[in-house]
């Protein structure tokens, strides 16, 4: 993963054919994924999850509990991968870092006045610096949607670039567009292009605090932005749909979409992530179903 050069905002972004995008997405859900392919897919999904808790009620105990779950998803099934990362508030990074020592699970921290992004730039920079000082491996920043909707694209671009500079080589930067607040797929595409141009390592759909969160059409538009960038520069950018993906089945549909839009190079935790809290359990339950033959109950799987 080499550092990318930062280029300016592209003058225009392509218009999105909404009907076409929705139709294409409907096709992804009609693939038949069974038996060994399904098992492989489920393991892959589990290894790509950013296990997330972003609640006002988060306590250090809850974070430690979740970190244990991330590194040991379900002890009674052998050979399960750990999740890719945990995603927490900056103040919890230290706790998570300590809990995950030696497990290979990364700690991602949200920052820049998450979730609204309505804070002065200085606060956002300080927020990010704090998370980095605590040892965050990944930074999930939010863009200033208000500014973006006002047409101040340069402001949004500069903010992302500043945070990127702060992250340097220490942490990979995920840029949350909060697509639920952008309104149209055209704006999603535009925001994706700006974030990519400003140096995002990942682009991410949502904070999980706004509905709708991640949807397949929105994710497809963002994947296409990544693909176009790859074709014109040869640089890869990662993708993270977050929020609202809670069933293993829909997660597999997302994998199909990634494979058919970007290709197999993206099908690993370095380039694709799921931001989710409930998804992990459903995936584990599906794996248990495939192993034992019986449909499973949530009563027998840890909640956090």
């Amino acid at each position, binding site marked *: 993963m080499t550092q990318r050069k930062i280029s300016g905002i592209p003058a225009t972004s392509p218009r999105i054919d909404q009907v076409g995008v929705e139709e294409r997405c409907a096709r992804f859900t009609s693939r038949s994924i069974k038996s060994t392919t399904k098992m492989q897919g489920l393991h892959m999904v589990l290894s790509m999850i950013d296990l997330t808790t972003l609640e006002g009620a988060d306590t250090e105990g809850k974070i430690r509990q979740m970190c244990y779950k991330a590194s040991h998803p379900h002890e009674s099934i052998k050979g399960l991968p750990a999740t890719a990362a945990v995603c927490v508030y900056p103040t919890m990074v230290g706790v998570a870092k300590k809990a995950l020592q030696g497990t290979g699970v990364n700690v991602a921290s949200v920052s820049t006045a998450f979730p609204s992004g309505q804070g002065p730039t200085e606060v956002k920079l300080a927020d990010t610096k704090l998370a980095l000082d605590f040892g965050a491996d990944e930074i999930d920043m939010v863009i200033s949607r208000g500014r973006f909707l006002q047409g101040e694209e340069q402001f949004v671009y500069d903010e992302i670039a500043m945070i990127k500079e702060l992250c340097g080589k220490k942490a990979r930067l995920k840029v949350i567009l909060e697509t639920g607040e952008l309104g149209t797929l055209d704006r999603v595409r535009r925001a994706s292009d700006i974030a990519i141009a400003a140096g995002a390592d990942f682009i991410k759909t949502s904070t999980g605090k706004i509905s709708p969160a991640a949807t397949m059409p929105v994710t497809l538009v963002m994947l296409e932005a990544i693909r176009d960038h790859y074709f014109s520069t040869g640089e890869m950018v990662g993708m993270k749909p977050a929020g609202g993906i809670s069933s293993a089945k829909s997660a597999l549909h997302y994998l199909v979409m990634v494979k058919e839009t970007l290709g197999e190079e993206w099908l690993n935790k370095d380039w694709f992530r799921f931001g989710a809290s409930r998804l992990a359990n459903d995936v584990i339950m599906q794996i248990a179903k495939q192993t034992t033959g019986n*449909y499973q109950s949530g009563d027998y799987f840890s909640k956090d």
Partner: protein
Amino acid sequence: MARLEVLKTYKIFIGGKFPRTESGRYYSPRDKKGNLLANVCLCSRKDLRESVVAARSAFGGWSTRSAFNRSQILYRIAEMMEGRRTQFIDELIKQGATASAAKKEVDLAVDRLVYYSGWCDKFQQVFSSVNPVNSSHFNFSVPEPTGVVGLLADEKTSLAGLVSGIAALVAGGNTVIALASESKPLCAVTFSEVIATSDVPGGVINILTGSKKELLEHFGSHMDINAVVYQGNSNEELSQLRSLASNNVKRISSYDKDWMDTAQQDPYFIMDAQEIKTTWHPIENIGSEGSGY
């Protein structure tokens, strides 16, 4: 000009919606003379899985609803059913019942709903107890709903068995996945339309049609079904159900009853899908200290 008859599509009932089976399969039950009754969904194990998900998410809300409100809703089902008497009677006759037997069965089904509606806010008091204990504790036992319950409905009756089973289960605060009579499924589907218009929250009652032979093992093995009520008399089916149920110590109740008998209703049918919770609550030892109050 002759009018083309508009035939009803017999669908299944999951989570308050009327989907067709996920499998796309159907079967064609016939009456005694061999005439086609209807093409009916032949449900797969995935339909059962979907129903369990719906029933599980409905359980919290239904079981914590006030008993009085559950009673009102059961009564509402009876009201709605009363309004569709002729449709039920027609279907029963189509499935081979005589006119008088059909009328009797519909009346009985409506009355049974009213009967269990009455028990909703009473059985807990009747079956609860305050237990004498040898310490300064207030100790009491109360019945609480078991959870998600499967119902393998009576094969011989189309309506009486199904309604008796469902009414007793939901009166006690459980959520239900019922598999209708395989040979006489029409009334079950119409009953689900009654439920859909009776203030019953989506997912509390789910009704599937199809092969008992095919689905029985999945009712038995599903880890998220807490109990199964079996209406029938096949020892083979019952032992298969019991052995699979051991995986998650599912409660199995079996009844070989004549559901058309007006006497086949009592609160013990509710109690069979209840768990007894006993609670110890520390209190001041009044007896040894004289007057504490």
